[in-house]
């Protein structure tokens, strides 16, 4: 009796998980598959698994549409965002983990409110101001905006990691004559690397995945890969253009898949640190 019901439960679990994996992966799998096809085969009335493959879509978007330029922009913007946001975020996260006064509490509450804000609210203010100041469509502008938007989440997460490092460690360093800054730099940062890498991954994802801000703040050749996909959306586009968009979307996805392959453990740790400990 018991074994029969557990057998039933096991097969139910197996079916459920298989179905879930199929649902989770299929849209991306299909997108990858049809990105190598001509429009006729990609959207044929009888879907086929095997069809002639071509690199034409990729060639067109990367070379003729200048996608490589957006790739460079994305690299510049995301790498700078990660570097700046980790530097200032570590300082703040460390201070929040060690400080006992009420200011720390208020800062965290403020950050929570900022985190909940839809980004378009900020964009509404940026648009006329940046235009007036003449800092429209520049790397520095987009980078600093992304850093600021990243901060609430980054300081919450890094604080959770710093809290898990025992106080005794920096206190011992300070009784040995280190200043607070030296204790932070020489004792705490070296043991914080796993936390810093995790926070860096999430900074990357936020900057890389952003469409809303980049598509509005940057024009023409200055835009990022993700934001440039906007050029291929809309209903009145030809089938060829749609196919170029699919190749672009696949190109945007590949770095993320590589990232999950390498850093799966850190991503999981980061999400749980934010929620479970924070």
């Amino acid at each position: 009796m018991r074994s029969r019901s557990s057998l039933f439960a096991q097969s139910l679990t197996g079916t459920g998980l298989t179905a879930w994996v199929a649902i989770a992966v299929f849209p991306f799998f299909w997108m990858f598959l049809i990105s190598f096809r001509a429009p006729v085969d990609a959207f044929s009335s009888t879907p086929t698994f095997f069809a002639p493959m071509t690199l034409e879509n990729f060639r067109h978007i990367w070379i003729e549409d200048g996608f490589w330029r957006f790739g460079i922009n994305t690299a510049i913007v995301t790498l700078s965002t990660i570097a700046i946001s980790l530097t200032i975020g570590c300082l703040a996260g460390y201070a929040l983990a060690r400080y006992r006064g009420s200011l720390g509490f208020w800062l965290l509450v403020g950050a929570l409110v900022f985190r909940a804000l839809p980004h378009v609210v900020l964009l509404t203010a940026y648009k006329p101001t940046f235009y007036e100041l003449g800092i429209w469509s520049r790397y520095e502008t987009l980078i600093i905006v992304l850093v600021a938007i990243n901060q609430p989440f980054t300081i919450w997460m890094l604080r959770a990691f710093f809290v898990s490092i025992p106080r005794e460690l920096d206190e011992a360093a300070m009784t040995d004559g280190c200043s607070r800054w030296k204790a932070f730099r020489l004792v705490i940062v070296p043991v914080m690397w796993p936390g810093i890498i995790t926070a860096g991954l999430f900074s990357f994802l936020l900057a890389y995945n952003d469409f809303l801000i980049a598509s509005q703040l940057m024009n023409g050749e200055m835009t990022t890969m993700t934001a440039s996909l906007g050029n291929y959306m809309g209903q009145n586009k030809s089938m060829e253009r749609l196919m170029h968009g699919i190749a672009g979307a696949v190109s945007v996805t590949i770095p993320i898949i590589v990232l999950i392959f390498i850093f799966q453990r850190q991503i999981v740790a980061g999400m749980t640190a934010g929620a479970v400990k924070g």
Partner: protein
Amino acid sequence: MKTKSFLAFVAPSVATMLLLIALPLVGVAYLSLHQSHVKTELVELTTEVPLIGGVTRKQTRVVPQSVLGEDGKPIQVWEFVGGRNLEKAAELNNLAKAFASPRGDPGEKTYLARLYREVTNYDFWSALEFTLLYTFLTTPAILVVGLALALAVNSVSKRLRGTLVFATLLPMIVTPVVSSLAIYWLFLDNAIITNFIEYLGLGKFYFLADKFTIRTLIILYGVWFAAPFAFIILYAGLQTMPRDPLESAMIDGANKWQRLRYVIVPHLTPLLTVITLIHVMDAYRVFEPILVFNADIFANSVQYLTYYTLAFENNIHKAAAYSILTIAGVILILVPVLRKSFREYRIST
């Protein structure tokens, strides 16, 4: 840590947040209270209009022209309008009309249905309606799906778990615009799923041209996109689950369902609360699927509505008014959370 060094450590981070988050909020409030237009004047313009041959005739017309300032740029006139932008954005006039017009017995069901239909005709209210619908339908769904996945993955062998977590992370981590597009390309009029349904003899569906199907699709996208997040957190929670209560429940003869209901779920309750909070904040700003599916006629969201007003209508004051209404919503969502954490903080000090 001393207050002085605390302030020094947080200064750069706080400075960027003040400059690029807090200050813009003040800016949005300012924009929403003002209107601006380019200053124009009427100018008499005399041109020579050719008649026949070389003969011309002088013609004088009065045309409006923007006034240029000393720097050669058109002069912008700013005018304080108080709550007028907000009133227009929320369409208070139309709301009042909808509520005032007599429609038979107010107790009637059709009265409420008609009122609902009328109110959701207005831009902001229809966007708010779908945003709330999306939020309140996806939240319980991701909790249930996330919990089911966490329990299922927890019960399979360790070797399989890595692959399962990898597959599960995909919908959540891949750029939202791209994952929306990946779904969109499955449901186009001649795409694989549409064709497959037709092939099965279930008829031709135009998923993206019908209010019901497009709304269903966006909500299912929301579950697909956010359930992995609930899964990861609940899965981590299951790892910290102490074995003793589970074992004693089994000795007491509790079946699977009872163990889930009385031992596992209570252990995970704090996590379910955190997931709900974070998901409600994220769902409230749903944007990408609306943009990608071209759904705004059938299913708009407050963030997309503001984006559209800003990017395509180029109306910063109206967009600012929508932003203020959006912020009001965020504050309403956060009030219970803030009150709770404030109370806990007071107790702890």
